[in-house]
């Protein structure tokens, strides 16, 4: 199907893009990797009058460590994230996540910023960013602000971004010694959204106890959610099979999935338990071997 008509501009800088956003008010959409917005426009679920294409803005595709955090530019493509050496070596949970998104062709265009800004409860990066306690940088007419990830997702397909703001960067706390994370996703076939998926992150103390845990769920509710009770279950404990089982069971109770073509709510809850077990076991393994 063919999208509705719109006016198009492709500004060369963030300030220029913001100016256009301010000018056009509510009838405007930012276009990044295209892989969610164009499908939605083809179904005429959205008919924006103005499209601001940010793909020609330079300097927003970095994947690098600076000032104590990992900086990912909003326009970093999933394929670049997936192929980044630093991601593979130091942030394997982000590699796990990117690699499971859509298919390689979609990943050649899809962006990290778009994956968060779209806030589809089925998008994979939101859970991982919740587990890692990332921050999102937004720039608007009044300058820049840094939004903690827990304040970023506010509803289904809704974020804390103002209509005249652009997400420019994602900041992930720099990987610490004895920390590890993993993302486990169950999908019906390559390229599909999750039946259930779980992001798990742990930081271990020198005695091997869990000092800090980050747990979050994909497609487990109407929006991406943090499994806070599972985090509490893990905090301060010595890892064991039993602890993993208990935290998995707690996480599955925190989920509130709905029945649809991907399965019944009960099935999905059971799969969240299984995915939590897998993600957590792998995260702990990675933390133990990360000195």
């Amino acid at each position, binding site marked *: 199907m063919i999208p*509705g008509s719109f006016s198009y501009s492709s500004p060369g800088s963030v300030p220029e893009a913001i100016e256009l956003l301010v000018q056009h008010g509510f009838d405007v959409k930012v276009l990044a990797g295209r892989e969610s917005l164009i499908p939605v426009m083809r179904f005429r679920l959205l008919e924006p009058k103005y499209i601001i*294409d940010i793909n020609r803005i330079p300097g927003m595709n970095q994947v690098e460590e600076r000032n104590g955090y990992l900086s990912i530019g909003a326009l970093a493509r999933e394929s670049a994230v997936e192929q980044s050496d630093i991601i593979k070596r130091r942030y394997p949970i982000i590699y796990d996540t990117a690699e499971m998104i859509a298919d390689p062709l979609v990943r050649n*265009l899809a962006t990290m910023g778009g994956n968060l800004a779209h806030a589809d409860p089925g998008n994979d990066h939101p859970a991982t960013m919740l587990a890692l306690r990332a921050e999102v940088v937004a720039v608007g007419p009044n300058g820049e602000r840094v939004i903690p990830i827990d304040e970023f997702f506010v509803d289904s397909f809704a974020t804390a971004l103002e209509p005249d703001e652009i997400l420019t960067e994602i900041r992930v706390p720099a990987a610490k010694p004895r920390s590890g994370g993993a993302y486990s996703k169950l999908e019906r076939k390559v390229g599909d959204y999750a039946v259930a998926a779980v992001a798990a992150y742990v930081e271990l103390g020198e005695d091997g106890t869990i000092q800090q845990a980050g747990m979050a769920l994909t497609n487990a509710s109407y929006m991406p959610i943090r499994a806070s009770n599972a985090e509490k279950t893990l905090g301060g404990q010595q890892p064991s099979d039993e602890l993993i089982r208990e935290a998995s069971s707690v996480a599955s109770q925190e989920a509130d999935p709905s029945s649809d073509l991907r399965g019944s709510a009960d099935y999905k809850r059971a799969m969240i338990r299984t995915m939590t077990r897998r993600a957590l076991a792998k995260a702990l393994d990675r933390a133990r071997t990360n000195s």
Partner: protein
Amino acid sequence: MAGEHVTVKVTVNGDSYSREIEPRTLLVLFIREELGLIGTHIGCDTTSCGACTVRWNGQPVKSCTVFAVQADGQEIQTVEGLEQGGQLHPIQEGFWEEHGLQCGFCTPGMMMTASALLEKTRTRAKRRSGTRSPGTCAGAPGTSTSFARSSTPRTS
């Protein structure tokens, strides 16, 4: 807005084109209807099938999910651009010899993706691929062997 036109200048298979189009024109429709290159197919409405795959500055992308106006100044290759000087591309030869298809509708897209993959893996000459072909397609085994054939260094 409605009826508003923009100019797009794009290189497709080495030839330069300039056209006045509506911004909402999808790249796949631009290629088929404006340029008359109908080897690129449309198989779905959901960015799933890959029949529309072209190479965008070398990278395989789904042309049904890009606006043509975004291709301004870029280099696009379609399936028509694989053959060089009457010589089939090794990928085309592979698909031809091994019958890498069932109905053939998505084959142009398959070949564009495979040609990019081939360039990535050629030096390693790996005899593997096709592992992600659609599970329901009777052409999947043939697609695999087609790729294997194209990626095997020729002795003659």
